């Protein structure tokens, strides 16, 4: 690959966003990089491996695999484009909606207190024994308590709200429950992770467990962790939900993918979350 570098450098000189995107395609994760937000808040981007991830030497956030330019965007709340969604989410938190004329705040008060740690435990099994993602809890409040309409899984309102709620857990370690009532869901998710989908017959593990650190065409493969979600993707110029990312990755194996908000993706979310146990919730991240 060495011989390709001059050509790459030329290509990089053109557009800024293109530079951020293609600049990712260089090498191994940069283990000397430290994520410190606004010079104050240290975010844990490496965590020890354990029984859940016997095939990983260590857990790495996707942040470590990105170019220095992309990493810097996430280290500065003023530069981070995802912060606009967080602000929108904060507004929605206080806005009354639905036939009962209530806002989230009317029941939950100050999100900094009531929502702290929520993201780190998602997805989790609800009182009825069903595995729910954060989007399900949000929509349940809207339809059952506020008399409002459910938001679309990856619609702007929902991704703004999940961005805002995730920020209340920023810096806290992923700590999902995988035993007890969560166990069958976790096992379903694990089976999916190792299933070779589509005409290319690639599993999540083919790319994110066996090939992280390598390049697949222009893409530098990470461990596919979700501790950074919701993510602002420069390529999409918008916020991407976890299920949206899963859908894209399965589609890229030339497979019939699953729907966002499907039972399959909830189970996969739980399993993938557990592979990131100990990594810090990034609140909102920036990725190419």
């Amino acid at each position, binding site marked *: 690959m060495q011989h*390709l570098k001059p050509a790459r450098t030329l290509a990089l000189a053109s557009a800024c966003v293109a530079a951020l995107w293609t600049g990712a395609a260089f090498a191994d994760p940069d283990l000397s990089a430290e994520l410190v937000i606004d010079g104050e808040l240290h975010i844990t981007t490496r965590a020890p491996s354990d029984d859940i991830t016997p095939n990983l030497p260590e857990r790495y956030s996707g942040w470590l695999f990105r170019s220095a330019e992309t990493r810097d965007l996430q280290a500065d709340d003023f530069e981070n484009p995802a912060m606009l969604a967080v602000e929108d989410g904060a507004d929605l938190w206080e806005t009354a909606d639905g036939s009962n004329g209530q806002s989230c705040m009317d029941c939950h008060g100050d999100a900094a207190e009531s929502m702290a740690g929520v993201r780190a435990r998602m997805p989790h099994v609800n009182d009825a024994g069903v595995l729910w993602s954060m989007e399900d809890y949000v929509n349940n409040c809207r339809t059952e308590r506020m008399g409002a309409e459910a938001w679309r899984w990856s619609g702007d309102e929902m991704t703004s709200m999940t961005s805002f709620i995730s920020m209340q857990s920023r810096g806290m370690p992923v700590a999902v429950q995988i035993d007890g009532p969560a166990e069958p869901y976790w096992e379903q998710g694990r089976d999916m992770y190792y299933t070779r989908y589509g005409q290319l017959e690639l599993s999540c593990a083919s790319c994110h467990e066996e*090939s992280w650190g390598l390049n697949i*065409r222009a893409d530098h493969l990470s461990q596919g962790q979700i501790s950074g979600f919701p993510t602002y993707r420069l390529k999409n110029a918008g916020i991407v939900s976890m299920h949206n990312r899963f859908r894209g990755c399965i589609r890229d194996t030339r497979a019939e993918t699953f729907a966002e908000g499907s039972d399959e993706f909830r189970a996969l979310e739980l399993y993938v979350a557990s592979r990131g146990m100990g990594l810090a919730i990034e609140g909102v991240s920036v990725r190419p």
Partner: protein
Amino acid sequence: MKLKAVTGLIAAGIALGGAAFAEVAPGDVVWVDEVTIPDSLTGMPGTATAGVDVVSNRSQGNCVACHEFTALPDVQFQGNVGPSLDGVGSRWTEAELRGILVDAKHMFPETRMPSFYRVDGYTRPGDAYTGRAANPETFGPLLSAQQIEDTIAYLMTLTE
């Protein structure tokens, strides 16, 4: 379903090149010793220059997604999920390369390399990259017999 896919393929072959030789359909490929396919799938040798397009184009084999080719310095962003293919023409025989291309899982059982000339045994096969289910009536292999032969012709030129 399988029969229909095969018929579709032959029709495609005729439409493309008006081939006189009946191509070997994916289901009829003859393996020797599990890992080699001695006979050309088109009955003729392929064209190495056309093989360059197959290995480098995203819409064809896109082999460069996973493999590096020093001989193709103009092709940007070559991946490294698989080994570099420099010298591959000296490491393998033509019959072995045909086997690796048609279905690499014969040679490397757990490999991440896709099977380029196989139409069955997939989990949730899709309609290309749309995310929708494949239509069993029109589902074909990743590459045509001609593309496979062209790629082999090109790989055989990579001797160092």
